[in-house]
């Protein structure tokens, strides 16, 4: 169990590092799948098989597919990689990374300084989870239902494709600006 945990957490950390350093979105998403799979392996070694299944289905299945569809629709590719390469120069990311690494080191030291408690791994079966979910957490479950409805309605409303619109006070201004630009163009080409 210990070995399984160590290997899968190493794979998780390595693949997550690859995710945040890739320039091409599709490569990053492929590494993200590996990261989610290895987190599912960690869940399995922690005695939560149902959560591991849900992690694979919802994260590695649904969410990654959403990301891949959007990447495909936006036709991201070379320009995106170029833009990130231009921006991600070492002097930009070294500072925040060092500060974040210091915080991480502090947290690891704090966690290792405490008395080491090893935990017995026993499987918490889905039945217990379901009883808890529909017992004491029933209000929270209904609130999550509301959240999902809000998410669906929000995504459907925001994702609707409509033509670029200005506020009604700005509309005249924008039109005259475009007219001016067109006139300028005419004068300088014709």
């Amino acid at each position, binding site marked *: 169990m210990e070995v399984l945990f160590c290997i899968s957490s190493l794979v998780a950390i390595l693949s997550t590092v690859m995710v945040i350093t890739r320039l091409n979105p599709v490569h990053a998403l492929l590494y993200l799948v590996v990261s989610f799979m290895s987190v599912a392996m960690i869940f399995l070694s922690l005695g939560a098989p149902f959560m591991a299944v849900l992690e694979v289905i919802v994260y590695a299945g649904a969410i990654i597919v959403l*990301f891949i569809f959007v990447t495909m629709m936006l036709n991201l590719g070379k320009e995106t990689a170029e833009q990130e390469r231009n921006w991600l120069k070492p002097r930009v990311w070294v500072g925040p990374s060092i500060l974040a690494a210091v915080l991480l080191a502090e947290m*690891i030291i704090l966690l290792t300084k405490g008395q080491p408690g090893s935990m017995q791994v026993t499987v918490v079966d889905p039945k217990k989870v379901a009883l808890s979910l529909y017992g004491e957490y029933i209000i929270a479950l209904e609130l999550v239902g509301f959240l999902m409805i809000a998410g669906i309605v*929000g995504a459907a409303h925001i994702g609707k494709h409509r033509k670029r619109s200005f506020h009604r006070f700005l509309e005249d201004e924008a039109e005259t600006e475009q007219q001016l630009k067109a006139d300028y163009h005419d004068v300088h080409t014709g």
Partner: protein
Amino acid sequence: MSIQVNAVLIVAAILFVLGFIGVLTRKNILFMLISVEIMLNAAGLAFVAASAKWQQADGQVMFLFILAMAAAEVSVGLALVLQVYHQYKTLDIEKLNALKDE
């Protein structure tokens, strides 16, 4: 059959910090959304670890809630990304500076 609690928490912290670094350093909205997903996943890992430590189901229930929240968040976020791309033809957050104080 035993795993150190600290080890699991350290892994969750490392994953969270990696996602945080991703949010701070990338300038493409899509990558920032991916990094937010990594951070949510790390929080869920800490919850499941706590559930395994005390052998209670509450942590796993919380992970279920995080899962539902992440799914709703990513659908709205990706709809916003599509809309931003249609309006501005770019995903560079530096170009979205209409609210910037002159």
